[in-house]
């Protein structure tokens, strides 16, 4: 059963696939964290049309990393988070430089089924899908194609560490991040241009 509008978009996808109109312009805006080591390692990887997959288990404070990408000249952004019993604590986001006027949130466990219009539309330039409870391989394929059509950046956050043994051909970068008890953040690239490991002190993000 097709959702309204899907047929048209499939046609549009095929038209673009045939015409090869999928290229991202070289001047497409790359978003950066403002932390030199991180920006160097991400290179120009976080730019419109890209899908970045993050392995960020709850409680390891790893979400600071995708949030860092949103604090400078934040484009209109939507953060879709699963219902894990938690709600957004907005002042903490603002304190890390997020402009609350330009970021919106939706609580949803099954984003592609329930929020399809968001992916079919280019209103939001950055879409973060945080720990979806239902997310199939077909869904990943759909969002990666839509990201290219609409020139959006999509962050797919998993509530577990990503394994190099199970790949994701649609993601341009796959990265795990967590904080240890000594306050050191470990950023571990599984897939990307410069796959390597980076250690950062939490004092770079927090008053510790």
């Amino acid at each position: 059963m097709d959702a309204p509008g899907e047929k048209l978009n499939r046609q549009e996808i095929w038209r673009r696939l045939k015409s090869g109109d999928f290229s991202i312009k070289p001047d497409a805006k790359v978003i950066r964290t403002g932390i030199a080591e991180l920006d160097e390692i991400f290179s120009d990887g976080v730019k419109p049309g890209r899908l970045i997959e993050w392995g960020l288990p709850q409680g390891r404070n790893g979400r600071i990393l995708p949030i860092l990408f949103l604090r400078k000249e934040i484009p209109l952004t939507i953060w879709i988070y699963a219902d894990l019993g938690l709600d957004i604590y907005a002042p903490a986001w603002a304190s890390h430089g997020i402009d609350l006027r330009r970021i919106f949130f939706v609580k949803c466990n099954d984003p592609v089924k329930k929020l399809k219009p968001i992916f079919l539309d280019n209103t939001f330039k950055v879409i973060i899908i945080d720990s979806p409870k239902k997310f199939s391989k077909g869904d990943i394929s759909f969002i990666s194609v839509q990201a290219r059509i609409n020139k959006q950046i999509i962050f797919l956050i998993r509530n577990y560490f990503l394994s190099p043994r199970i790949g994701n051909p649609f993601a341009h970068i796959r990265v795990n991040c967590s904080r240890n008890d000594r306050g050191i953040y470990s950023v571990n690239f599984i897939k990307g241009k410069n796959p390597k490991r980076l250690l950062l002190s939490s004092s770079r993000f927090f008053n510790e």
Partner: protein
Amino acid sequence: MNNAGIAKVIDLKTFSMDETCPYFGAFYCEMEKAGKDIFSLTPRVMQWDENIWLFDLSPCRNFWAIQKEKKGKNLYELLEQILDASSGKGYLSVFGNHPWQCLLFIDFLLKKRSRGVFPLNTLLNRRIYEGLSWDHWFEPLEILSDHLNHLKVKGFKESQFRSKQAQLKRFIRRMDLLGPFDLSQADVASIERRFSGWLGEIWAWTFHGFLEDEKKTPDLFNSSENQIDLGSFPWIPFRIEDPPRAMRHLEYPVNRWDVIEPLLVEDFSKLCAMKSWSEQERVSSIVWAITLYNLEELKLELSFRNPYSLHLDSRNNFKTALYQAYYAYMGLADRLKARDTDLDLPEEIPFVSWKVEISECLYISPQTMELINDNSGPNYEGILDLQNKIPLHIESYVVVPDFTADLSFRSHEVGRNDSEYDFSLNQWIEASFNRPFFYYRNPLPITSPLELKPKFLERTSNDWWTGENLMDMTKDYFLVEDREGRFIWVFRDGSGVWYKHGIYS
């Protein structure tokens, strides 16, 4: 003469404590026959008596809040202009957070022969409301009783209602009480016990949002839900006689969305072609009444969080309305599948006919249209449009100055965020630097985590002067790493009880 540089004198009539849109209004106007103008502020209207109307603004709160910001006006100034354009002069309108409060205040103002717009959240009007006499409280009870009788509300007996009123009047005389607020300290349960459940509930309506303890614990998320529980208040919707509707008798039973979709597009086009309504009108609800193959009739509501123009949506092949219809259809299919597993029917019971009817519509006359600026930035219009297309609420937040961690922000209507950045909030924002991005709205009690060597973060204090227990004054926040290696945000209250308040995600 250029007025730009002239300082504006504070108008006590509209000097508000806050600028949030009210939930309800009472409107007095002498008119021979109610027309569409009565729906100028909201599609939800009730006729209280011959000349008094009640407005439920909840479907349009976001709409008016956005219009106010676009025009850079005081909200009530804008509402007054809309009412002037739709009803002319000579009306009286009161806005508040419960229809009963609006009715009490409008009764008082009518006796004073006042005219114009009176918000109940201004300091002046709050003081006047708190000083209302018993006469103003008892007077609307007559009509309330008529409405409850008309609705045949279960458990309501007019004779008993009157006798309990008489009992309350005797009590007031004996105690020499001047007005309802002299009894504001009485709790609802004791009023219910002594003077019946009905008078107890009406009693609670009178003070809703006015008492100190209610002010202390605002519902952060109320504004996003845009609803207030009316309890047993007898709301009788006023409808225009002939709303735009399209009937469809299917030539053969259908149950597939790809067959239903083009037929719905035809029906929506039919609705738009009707002369009984115009392009300016904004739809907030459409009823899709379906007759199933077994002749069972079911009503599905396609509701739109932001009133929108179906006529304009026709240029987009009715995508927004179709999304809402699709979600309603999917919900119905799931319900029917779960219910009718034992019937010898196709997997989903097919439809044989349906009716599509515009059930709630905000009327925007050409005069009102001039007051509403529709040329907003494309981004926020896009978000409002998306909000109408999805079944879930899009959340937006603002930081507010408050020492208590969980009261230092609130939900905010989408589309209102285009204002200037408020630099005065910087110190409050800085205070949240070591707090987590996700938190538990209701903190969870936990056993003492002292053995896990919690790291002290900060001490917060609440408005101690509003509470009774001074032990609740402070909270000490800590960062704890639990046995699974997760970082948790916990606090210890004044009495030494520990709570988990968030997770460093």
